[in-house]
């Protein structure tokens, strides 16, 4: 019947191709043949009758005319499929899943351990991240509240980058710019001694105005929020203080209004005008007492409300709804020019910025910080570690599940022969992984809850699981997002093994000619590479963090603070003309204690930001612009106590001091300071003079430079002056194996000399190292979690290698029979994995380099990143990988070939 098919030629052209392709795209497969046949036949016919052009046009019209419902309808199968969701099958899936887990206890344990560790670690870190990111978001309108920050330039150089600024700035801005709805000002934050009935309670507090409670959301439990901070000598105390000072419960708060407490040395008692809730832990401001700003105006002077010259306050402004902060910020340079006229008013060029409240805690690199700050980079690093850990754990799951798929190939074959579709098989394996993952998730949550107290203690933060379920960053949205992440993670980690398994060809599997596909190996290998890249980055990071922390602990600071005990000065004693003699005789008295070597008094201590003096000029040098020094009031024994060498001139003499501070005209500078004044060396500076605020000072001596703050800060130019204050500190160098006894002796003398004050002491080295507390916590926490990540990764490679090696038992047997050595076989088996790890090291090293560079850039004095640090990290990675692999490979290589070759 069939005529021979003629090849197309010039007389016999074919229809265009692409409409046919289009047809096959939408048309049901079983219809394509007849439709194409009809189309081509009509084309040939029309070609003969109407010519090529017409035939083509009609052909096209016909093809597009096919887009009709009949063409879409797929052929109905003769063998209908039962639904995949039959309860009997689902029960069977779960039964098989549990049996499989039970049968391979080792593998299941490995798998679940990895997942649980990963999920637990991830949840814990996320709590921390959520806590840190949620700072200050409890305020209504937190997104409209900005802090006014202030950069100060002299001769084009940034000399101060502070949150602190001039009192007149915010009121004037509020007048000049309609965008500002309201503002509040804080001043003199610090620790105050609240006194009631001769008992002293130390509490952090600040002076602020009546708008504070309307800018911020700190609820009052008693008192009127509009007026509580209006009158001078008003104070609002927190619930904790109400309990502590008055032993008052919530029902008595109303009665506390009108009661009085004494604050520091102020003779006027403060009247309680409000009881406020304790500030939430997520507030960057942490105060237990707020005192009215008008009080300061009385005691310090009116300038605290309107000065353009002394910068001693912090301003927070609330913008009107819908205001664009960036465009308001653009108007601030003109504001500065208008009111500060370059550097004519305050001595430096002032620049103002609006810092969003939400950045005050994590992303604030300002000096004179009023609040609780943390390093945003550290928080993001933790988030990245959390993501890595979770990814590594899921990758482990994928790797182990696919590697084991060979064992289950027969099961897949039999199921397929019995009529299972790949959809059903995917469903089966997916449900297996969902079971395993869900189990791990539940265990992870339980473990995270169990370890909560341990974590909170380690990092000293009030974390809770609620931070993830709505109480933290993002509110309930975070909970939704996290469940989204976990659900999709569980599904995705289940998908790959499920597809890999269900795609096995039944015939091949059952015939026994089935081999693991190269494609699957490629995926597994890249996953191992990813895991080890992450591990490499974390190992390098941990290593460098520790190195830097060690460096900071051990770096010579330029002064000696071993066994220096510091006691707080008698703040509650009033200053009078005899105070200096009193302080000196107290020191002499202290030195009578045998274990006390020397005692000294100073107005401030190392480790804190020092106050600054601006516009200092050298006499006789005709300098046009002044320079800026930090300043420190110290007595004659201070340098001896801290073993700071005087390199030129002399130390202070007792006669340099004077109860009348105007008569003090001697100063000692450090080397940085004399360099800034333009002296070539210390000897040249001694005996010279400088001027500040119209008063001449003689440089009697020069001391060597030292790190007055942590190694995050630069060494500053410092001027020391022989001032005494009662609100300062006594540094006491002791030399004893029994400090408790010495402290008791000191306390006795302190109480005799300064009755009515709290005896409060600490060791200087501990206090100084507290500057690294956040870094140390970060180091501890990140190293622990990095360790977990590496552990999970090695669990993975352990499982994977044990699996591949068990697949090669026969090969190993044959090799041994033919004379291979044990070491040769171990090398052979380890080589494949070590190659991957080497590759991962190559990728991980530059990423790690970038990361640690970022972290180190926060430190003014830091270790250099050197190649051998990477080499060590690489060696560690390789060693861990080799150890996990060789555990299996050595066993396999030692196995007698008789055993492995006997079967079959």
């Amino acid at each position, binding site marked *: 019947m069939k005529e021979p098919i003629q090849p197309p030629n010039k007389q016999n052209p074919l229809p265009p191709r692409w409409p046919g392709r289009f047809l096959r795209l939408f048309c049901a497969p079983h219809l394509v043949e*007849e439709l194409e046949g009809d189309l*081509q036949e009509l084309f040939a*016919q029309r070609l003969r009758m109407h010519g090529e052009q017409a035939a083509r046009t009609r052909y096209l019209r016909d093809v597009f005319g*096919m887009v009709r419902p009949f063409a879409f309808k797929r052929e109905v199968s003769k063998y209908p499929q039962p639904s995949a969701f039959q309860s009997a099958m689902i029960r069977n899936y779960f039964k098989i899943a549990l049996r499989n887990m039970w049968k391979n206890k080792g593998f299941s344990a490995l798998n679940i351990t990895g997942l649980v560790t990963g999920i637990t670690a991830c949840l814990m870190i996320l709590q921390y991240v959520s806590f840190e990111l949620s700072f200050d978001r409890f305020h209504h309108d937190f997104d409209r509240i900005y802090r006014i920050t202030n950069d100060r330039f002299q001769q084009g150089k940034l000399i101060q980058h502070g949150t602190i600024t001039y009192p007149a700035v915010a009121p004037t801005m509020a007048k000049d710019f309609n965008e500002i709805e309201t503002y509040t000002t804080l001043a003199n934050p610090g620790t105050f001694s609240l006194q009631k009935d001769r008992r002293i309670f130390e509490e952090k507090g600040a002076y602020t105005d009546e708008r504070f409670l309307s800018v911020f959301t700190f609820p009052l439990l008693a008192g009127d929020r509009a007026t509580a901070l209006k009158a001078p000598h008003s104070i609002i105390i927190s619930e904790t203080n109400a309990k502590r000072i008055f032993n008052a419960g919530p029902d008595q708060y109303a009665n506390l209004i009108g009661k009085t407490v004494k604050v520091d040395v102020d003779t006027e008692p403060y009247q309680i005008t409000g009881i406020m809730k304790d500030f939430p832990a997520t507030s960057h401001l942490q105060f237990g007492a707020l005192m009215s700003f008008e009080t300061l105006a009385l005691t310090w002077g009116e300038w605290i409300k309107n000065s353009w010259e002394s910068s001693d306050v912090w301003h927070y402004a609330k913008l009107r709804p819908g205001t664009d902060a960036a465009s308001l910020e653009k108007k601030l340079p003109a504001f500065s020019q208008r009111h500060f006229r370059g550097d004519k008013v305050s001595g430096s060029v002032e620049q103002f910025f609006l810092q969003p409240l939400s950045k005050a805690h994590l992303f604030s690199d300002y000096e004179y910080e009023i609040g609780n700050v943390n390093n945003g980079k550290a928080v993001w690093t933790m988030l990245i570690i959390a993501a890595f850990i979770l990814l590594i754990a899921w990758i482990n799951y994928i790797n182990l599940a696919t590697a084991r798929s060979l064992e289950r190939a027969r099961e897949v074959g039999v199921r397929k022969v019995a009529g299972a579709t790949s959809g059903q098989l995917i469903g089966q394996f997916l449900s297996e992984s969902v079971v395993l993952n869900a189990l791990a998730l539940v265990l992870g949550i339980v473990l995270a809850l169990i370890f909560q107290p341990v974590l909170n203690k380690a990092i000293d933060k009030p974390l809770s699981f609620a931070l993830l379920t709505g109480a933290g960053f993002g509110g309930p949205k975070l909970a939704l997002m996290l469940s989204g992440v976990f659900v999709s993670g569980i599904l995705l980690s289940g998908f790959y093994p499920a597809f890999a398994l269900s795609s096995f060809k039944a015939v091949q599997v059952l015939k026994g000619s089935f081999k693991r596909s190269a494609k699957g190996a490629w995926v597994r290998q890249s996953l191992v590479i990813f895991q080890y890249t992450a591990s490499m980055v974390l190992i390098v990071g941990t290593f460098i963090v520790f190195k830097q922390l060690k460096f900071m602990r051990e770096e010579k600071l330029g002064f000696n603070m071993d066994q220096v005990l510091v006691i707080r000065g008698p703040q509650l004693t009033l200053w009078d003309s005899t105070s200096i003699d009193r302080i000196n005789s107290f020191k002499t008295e202290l030195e009578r204690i045998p274990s006390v070597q020397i005692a000294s008094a100073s107005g401030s201590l190392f480790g804190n930001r020092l106050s600054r003096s601006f516009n200092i000029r050298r006499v006789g040098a005709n300098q046009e612009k002044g320079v800026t020094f930090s300043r420190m009031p110290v007595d004659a024994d201070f340098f001896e106590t801290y073993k700071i060498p005087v390199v030129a001139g002399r130390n202070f003499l007792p006669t340099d001091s004077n109860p009348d501070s105007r008569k003090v005209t001697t100063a000692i500078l450090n080397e940085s300071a004399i360099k800034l004044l333009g002296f070539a060396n210390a000897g040249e500076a001694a005996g010279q003079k400088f001027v500040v605020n119209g008063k001449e000072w003689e440089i009697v001596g020069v001391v060597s430079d030292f790190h007055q703050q942590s190694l995050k800060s630069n060494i500053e130019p410092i001027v020391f002056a022989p001032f005494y204050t009662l609100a300062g500190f006594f540094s006491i160098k002791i030399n004893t194996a029994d400090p408790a006894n010495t402290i008791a002796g000191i306390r006795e003398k302190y109480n005799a000399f300064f009755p009515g004050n709290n005896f409060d002491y600490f060791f200087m080295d501990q206090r100084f190292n507290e500057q690294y507390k956040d870094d140390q916590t970060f180091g501890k926490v990140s190293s622990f979690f990095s360790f977990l990540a590496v552990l999970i990764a090695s669990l993975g490679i352990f499982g994977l290698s044990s699996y591949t090696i068990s697949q090669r038992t026969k090969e190993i047997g044959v090799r041994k029979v033919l004379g291979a050595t044990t070491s040769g076989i171990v090398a052979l088996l380890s080589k494949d994995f070590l190659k991957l790890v080497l590759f991962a090291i190559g990728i991980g090293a530059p990423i790690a380099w970038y990361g640690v560079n970022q972290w180190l850039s926060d430190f003014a004095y830091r270790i250099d990143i050197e190649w051998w640090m990477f080499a060590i990290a690489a060696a560690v990675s390789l060693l861990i990988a080799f150890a996990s692999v060789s555990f299996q490979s050595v066993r396999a290589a030692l196995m007698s070939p008789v055993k492995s070759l006997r079967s079959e």
Partner: protein
Amino acid sequence: MKGTYLGEFEEVVLLAVAILAGDAYGAAITHEIEQQMGRSVNLGAVHAALHRLEEKGLLSSRLGGATAERGGRSKRFFTMTMAGTNALDNIREMRNRMWNAIPKPA
């Protein structure tokens, strides 16, 4: 159960199948209709009608008869079923009745 109502185009297609008597397939039917009615017809429309008629049980089909002109592809031959023949007869009868009912001009 699909109704046995026939659309105008369906009727034409059914008639063409009857005319071609055993040699009726998509292209031939299209060609036949074009010849008879003197207007161009879309192949897709013809196939859609054929599918509907087959679903209604008025036509039956089988595959076969590839030719070179079709690039060696099979044709689907349509034949009238008894129901199809009856349907055409019914229509014709009804039309005749209606024609007869037209009053003759005096």
